[in-house]
């Protein structure tokens, strides 16, 4: 379990993390969301013992990081932002080095084989890390983070700079980790949170602005439960928009789509589709919105400013 209390970090006069408090339980896959410079990376650096907090407490599995740093670091796997590694080493040399430091002993070869397979690095083992593409570098970083099968995995922008296939792979990898681990990932990509996380935390200006499930985050969107329709040709929609269950509507001038917002968060999809059928309106698209995350994100992080 990770317990963070009143965590603060300031650099000179600038406060990067401001009185942040939260707890993470085993089984939580937490997505740290937030604009650039919000304090996500700084928080992760403090959790992993790289930075010392200006004030506040971090306790991990009952140990305080201020006096048990090394013991805590043994339980954490960490992928720093940009996946730094020793460029003059080959992938295999690097993994051996990390495995030695992690004290894997006689399990070493088996663990290395396993992670190489997990992140699909088989063909790159004898390449110098310096000469790897961005995607492979990221995979090497992931491999060193999970090589000791840590109870806590902290990944700073694990999919940054990867192509969609690689992103998919990384997400699968995270999802396939066992259920009793703590995983914290930071990302700019909102869909990633709904795809892999069971908890989302939005951080802006060093403070926590949202903490809940990705679904709860979507519910915050005004598009949550809204219904969007599109017609084959120009149609009178005044009847639709004046239905009792429709509170307001919005027309996207570019695509011609009409979005109907429900009154009192009710499900209006059945009512709308009924109406359309009854009146024989020429529709070609009709769907219920889940809620637009980028919208919520903007709303929550702009409030902060």
């Amino acid at each position: 379990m990770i317990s963070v209390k009143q965590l603060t970090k300031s650099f000179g006069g600038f406060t990067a993390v401001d009185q942040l408090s939260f707890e993470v339980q085993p089984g939580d896959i937490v997505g740290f969301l937030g604009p650039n410079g919000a304090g996500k990376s700084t928080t992760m650096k403090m959790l992993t013992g790289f930075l010392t907090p200006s004030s506040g407490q971090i306790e991990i599995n009952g140990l305080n990081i201020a006096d048990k740093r090394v013991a805590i670091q043994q339980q954490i796997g960490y992928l720093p932002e940009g996946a730094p590694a020793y460029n003059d080493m080959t992938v295999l040399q690097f993994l051996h080095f990390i495995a030695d430091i992690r004290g894997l002993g006689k399990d070493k070869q088996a663990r290395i084989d396993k992670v190489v397979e997990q992140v699909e690095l088989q063909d790159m083992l004898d390449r110098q890390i310096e000469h790897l593409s961005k995607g492979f570098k990221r995979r090497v970083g992931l491999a060193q983070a999970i090589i000791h099968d840590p109870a806590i995995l902290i990944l700073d922008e694990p999919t940054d700079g990867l192509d969609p296939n690689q992103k998919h792979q990384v997400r699968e990898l995270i999802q396939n980790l066992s259920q009793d681990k703590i995983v914290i990932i930071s990302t700019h990509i909102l869909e990633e949170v709904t795809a892999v996380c069971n908890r989302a935390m939005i951080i802006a200006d060093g403070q926590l602005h949202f903490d809940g499930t990705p679904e709860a985050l979507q519910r915050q969107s005004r598009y949550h439960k809204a219904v969007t329709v599109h017609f084959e040709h120009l149609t009178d929609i005044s009847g639709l928009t004046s239905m009792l269950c429709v509170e307001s509507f919005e027309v996207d001038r570019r695509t011609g789509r009409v979005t109907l917002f429900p009154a009192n968060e009710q499900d209006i999809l059945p009512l709308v589709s009924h109406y359309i059928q009854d009146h024989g309106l020429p529709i070609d698209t009709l769907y219920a919105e889940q809620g637009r995350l980028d919208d919520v994100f903007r709303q929550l992080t702009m409030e902060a400013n």
Partner: protein
Amino acid sequence: MGNTLIILRREFSSFFATPVAYVFIAIFLSLSAVFTFSFGSLYERGQADLLPFFNFHPWLYLFLVPAMAMRSWSEERKSGSIELLMTLPISVWQAMLGKFLAAWLVLGLALALTFPLWLTVNYLGNPDNGIILAAYLGSWLMSGAFLAIGMCMSALSKSQVIAFILAVVVCFLFVLSGSGLILNAFNDVLPVLVLDTLASFSFLSHFDAMAKGVIALNDVGYFVLVALVWLYAGRLVIEHKKAE
């Protein structure tokens, strides 16, 4: 101890994975040959010893050792791998010591590779090999003190150039404080006690005896102490500003 050894191995092989070690050894060997034969007049002196060779070591190390040490931490900062290293379950001291020992071994290797000189004097005459061995050990010890200064300066900056210049300046002060140049300049101004203290901080005065084959406890202790103090300072620097 285990972790120190693992870091040592990584750093040592990294010296040979990049051209650093080869370039260093090549330059060290050719310069020491030039100094010994041209400036030190090894042949002309007509004595079977390696004094001319060892006498130039402080000046050789002054530039070569900072060049070798400058990358140790600067590179880690620059590439960001310091974040990886410092979030692995090792202490800063283990990392510092591992890096130091690796570079010190390379220095030892470079020294050992000057053995043809030793063969030469043994071929030409009948030198006291005990003295030569003692001088080798003394020289290696002194190189450790240079190295520790260089590593501390490397910890200060992410720029290798700055680390190099700072290290040369500090090393220069340590070498120079015992040279006749400084001592004569202050001869009339400073009391003898101060001058003696100043001179006792110098690498030169402590190395002089060792180059002649006298291994005294206070000289050995001095170099060990200087190395430890600078390594410790480097450790503090890393601990306090590793993220900058």
